[in-house]
């Protein structure tokens, strides 16, 4: 069974006829070809699929595509404005906060939503903030530093 939905995806109003059993993550990756968000666990444990829906960071693997109807969604691809990377993306590159990169889109979207809510987090708040995102490579230290750099820019 399918349902027609309409929502805003990275600033553009889009329509889609989706299978009711499709997850939001599958729709974004396969129907819209936005493959930044990744499926790690498919069960809410790893955060690799994190996107921002109506201002909140969510695990796209735990949402049905039909539930996107009427919402405003930002994925990692939507952070680039006029070809310019988001300060978080720049900072992750400059601070070598990624190795294989699988966790990176989710990590950055989590950080993005966190900084919107709390522009000046402490190191502990950053650690807590990203605790729903697993990284198997970096040991987190560089990730925390990369987010801290952007938080400090917010202060200036």
């Amino acid at each position, binding site marked *: 069974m399918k349902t027609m939905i309409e929502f805003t995806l990275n600033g553009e109003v889009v329509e889609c006829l989706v299978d009711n*059993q499709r997850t939001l993550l599958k729709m974004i990756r396969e129907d819209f070809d936005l493959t930044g968000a990744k499926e790690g666990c498919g069960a809410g444990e790893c*955060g690799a699929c994190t996107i921002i829906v109506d201002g909140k*960071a*969510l695990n796209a693997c*735990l949402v049905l595509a039909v539930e996107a*109807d009427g919402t405003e969604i930002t994925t990692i691809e939507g952070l680039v404005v006029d070809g310019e990377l988001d300060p978080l993306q720049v900072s992750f590159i400059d601070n070598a906060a990624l190795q294989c990169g699988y966790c990176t889109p989710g990590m950055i979207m989590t950080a993005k939503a966190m900084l919107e809510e709390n522009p000046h987090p402490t190191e502990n708040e950053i650690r807590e903030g990203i605790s*729903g995102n697993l990284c198997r490579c970096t040991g987190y230290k560089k990730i925390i530093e990369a987010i801290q750099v952007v938080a400090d820019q917010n202060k200036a």
Partner: protein
Amino acid sequence: MKTFEYLRPTSLKEALDILKNHDGNVSILNGGTDLIVRMREGHSSPEVVMDIKKIPGLDQIQVDEDRITIGATVLLNDLGLNEVIKTRYPYLAQAALSVGSKQVRNRATCIGNICNASPLADTATPLLALNADVHIYGEEGIKTVPLKDFFVFVRKTVLKPNEIVTGISFKQDPEALGIFTKMSRRKEVDLSTVCSTVMRTGTEYRISCGAVAPTPVRLFKTEAFLSGKTLTGEVIEEACKLAEGEVVPISDIRASEAYRREMVGVMLRRALSEWL
């Protein structure tokens, strides 16, 4: 995941009609953090998925002078970060914020946590200690069931197929002191190995535990023993022994039965010692 019909009612009446017309084959979709995982794993294959998030009025935490009501679609993050809940009922706020990750709590609801009726539901123990009531809408209108009578067994509640929970409320008791404890293998994004809320109002005590029985439970015998007593080291030891005997845990991947039993004593001892 098997396919299903997706319906999104905009009133309780419409929701009830959908439940009636589909004869028990409807799954209510709230935040979906339990339901969608179960559907993916094939444990649940409903014909109809009814999304209740567009029913107006269910997303509020209503603070009245004598009662607080948590609406059916209130998110765990909104409950845990609510000023009144944080200041007057910090143990409830802590329980709400102990569930999953930020992303999970941005979607998961308190009512979903309760209706899912897992033995380890983290928000169940503070609400049991607060003597909360569950408000249920069905063909005869709204009825109220005490939370302690709502749970029947693992993942089973008294809810009938054409009933829907509109919210949970409890009598304001800002004087009550409570301590929520969650023991888990990992600090974040982990399920409780055991959890509990210990509450004190005057010289009365209320104790509830999760993951030590088929449902979250109150330890009424231990409470009766403590009632009216002045806390001393000896009284606390006696109470802990009683509590360890009052629970009926099982062994599973998270812990053994013996460990859980002992931790019930540890949690109670630590909490009561705060009030010596």
